[in-house]
């Protein structure tokens, strides 16, 4: 596979801090300023959500953000356009941070498989994470993505058996994404008693069976959690907490300022 910003990033010897952001949340026009704010305050990789009307893996925060994004006119094509502008520095500083698109398969199917890959690469997207496209359903998808030089990241969950961790690790092009707890996004489950031991044991199991790097997300909300995940894995993903933090913003500028404040508090 050709090199891209993600393949270069994972070669570095550093723990990753990854942001998940839903475009145009909470106000139209917020995307480019937020991308700039996240880059400037030290996000190593940005996952950009592709909103879908029926996100079965998401809790209320990302569901709400997806519905807002859709009502603000966000769709696959408009996300490509935003990424293209970000890469060219139109409307914000030039964004050089790796960008991973994360979203459900239906909008991608509706856009059209091969066009999707081609247009994503042209826009400056580096990789894809499609939560409802597990290994069993994605052989063709993975081959096509690799052909276009796009990274593909697969999910591992606490109930994934060891031999399947090995399969997922072998399919993920650069790193795998471990779902921290058996839950939808943004639940408070990580705070439950006895969770620290459970998650340590789980990530130790992943380390034993994965050759590539892996990061952890779902329910990571503050610096304490980020540091904990850095001890146990190669990176932490923060999504719902970021969206919650900027949810009350009324202008793009305010959204960007709030995103920057929050992101600095994590580093």
């Amino acid at each position, binding site marked *: 596979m050709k090199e891209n910003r993600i393949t270069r990033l994972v070669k570095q010897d550093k723990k990753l801090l990854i942001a998940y952001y839903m475009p145009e949340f909470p106000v139209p026009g917020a995307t480019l300023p937020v991308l700039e704010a996240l880059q400037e305050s030290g996000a190593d990789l940005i996952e950009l959500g592709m*909103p879908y009307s*029926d996100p*079965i893996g998401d809790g209320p925060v990302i569901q709400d953000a997806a519905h807002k994004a859709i009502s603000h006119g966000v769709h696959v094509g408009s996300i490509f356009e935003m990424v293209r502008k970000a890469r060219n520095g139109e409307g914000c500083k030039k964004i050089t941070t790796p960008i991973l698109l994360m979203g*459900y398969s*239906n*909008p991608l199917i509706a856009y059209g498989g091969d066009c999707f890959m081609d247009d994503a690469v042209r826009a400056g997207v580096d990789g894809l994470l499609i939560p409802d496209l597990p290994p069993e359903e994605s052989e063709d998808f993975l081959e096509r993505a690799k052909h276009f030089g796009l990274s593909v990241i697969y999910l591992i*969950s606490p109930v994934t058996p060891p031999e399947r961790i090995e399969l997922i690790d072998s399919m993920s092009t650069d790193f795998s994404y471990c779902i921290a707890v058996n839950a939808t996004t943004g639940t408070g489950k990580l705070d439950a008693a006895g969770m620290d031991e459970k998650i340590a044991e789980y990530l130790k199991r992943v380390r034993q069976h994965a050759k590539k790097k892996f990061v952890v997300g779902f329910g990571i909300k503050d610096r304490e959690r980020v540091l904990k995940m850095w001890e146990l894995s190669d990176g932490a993903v923060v999504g719902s907490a970021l969206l919650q933090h900027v949810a009350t913003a009324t202008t793009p500028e305010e959204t960007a300022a709030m995103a920057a404040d929050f992101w600095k508090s994590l580093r």
Partner: protein
Amino acid sequence: MTQKVTYSAPDEFGHFGIFGGKFIPETLVKNAADLEEEYLKAKDDPEFRQTLDNLLRHYVGRPTPLYHALRLSEKQGGAEIWLKREDLCHTGAHKINNALGQVLLAKRMGKKRIIAETGAGQHGVATATVCALFGLDCIVYMGEEDIRRQAPNVARMKLLGAQVRPVSAGSRTLKDATSEAIRDWMNNPEETFYIVGSVIGMHPYPMMVRDFQAVIGREARQQVLEQAGRLPDVVVACVGGGSNAIGMFYEFLPDAKEVELIGVEAAGEGLDARHAASLTKGEIGVLHGSMMKLLQDEHGQVQEAHSISAGLDYPGVGPEHCYLQKLGLVSYTSTTDREALAALDALAKTEGIICALESAHAVHYAMKRAAEMPKESIIVVNLSGRGDKDMGTIMEELKL
């Protein structure tokens, strides 16, 4: 003798041609795999079969009759219309056939907490019923809009000891209730059994629900041979998610060269207005873990379906129906809200049977076809449920 059709689906990955499959987040992969493994074992276990058969017979009241609707047939002046009386099942619809099968599976797997989604409330009532029967905790997700439309069923579920959780997301109907039930399953994967009510969702649900509902067609085929002395010319069933239809059609699929199989979708206010006709007007997509034909906009956002009957109000449709349509083994058509109401009224007046608004869609098609066919022809209609739950809507619409 007419050639029999060989049909075998899904494949081992749950694919019906390009449809079906397991488009699910990793957290659900193990749940789905465990369920499939247990179901395949149970299916071939004589003890499991016998327990289920006994309950279907003595608790549900199977076999349900196949009834020759003489006055309705006479009114149309053509083919004989026969009704497969699933409305006479305990709880008033075919949904109990599947709920019973799945609750026995839940017991086998040692799961104590049962969740379900419901649209019209028939599946919710069926699930609440079998949970009461086996003393299991029951949580039913139901859209706020459906709770409003189907108040009597909400009360029934509560009376049966179930907790009804209102879903306020999206269109507040079956689609959103299903998403919420799937999320619950993700959040509680170990102790929870999810009883899906239709032939939708990720593998193995479309296959398993079909197998539990196939009793409808198995009985109907035997009954029509016994009572009329031959196979019917046409078999009709309504299609929302499609469980009563697949249950009716499955055993007739080998006969598909001589028996015309017709699925009737909800055309709502008309195919150019708000409707729920996914097979007629939908595009290929993924919803609730399965590839299917789906009502969606150009950007792949799922659109709200509309039908006067809450049970047909689903923007997708079972993957096997998409496959059967593609193979040409079943033809799909649609009936509007108005036409369904008129058929419901006619059936009540000629036969003394108040059917569900869902089933009325199939009745309408059968009446229309009967009028065009010679007297010796036979049409079998799956009368999937009774209409008590719809009395509110019926009173409003027919100004009673």
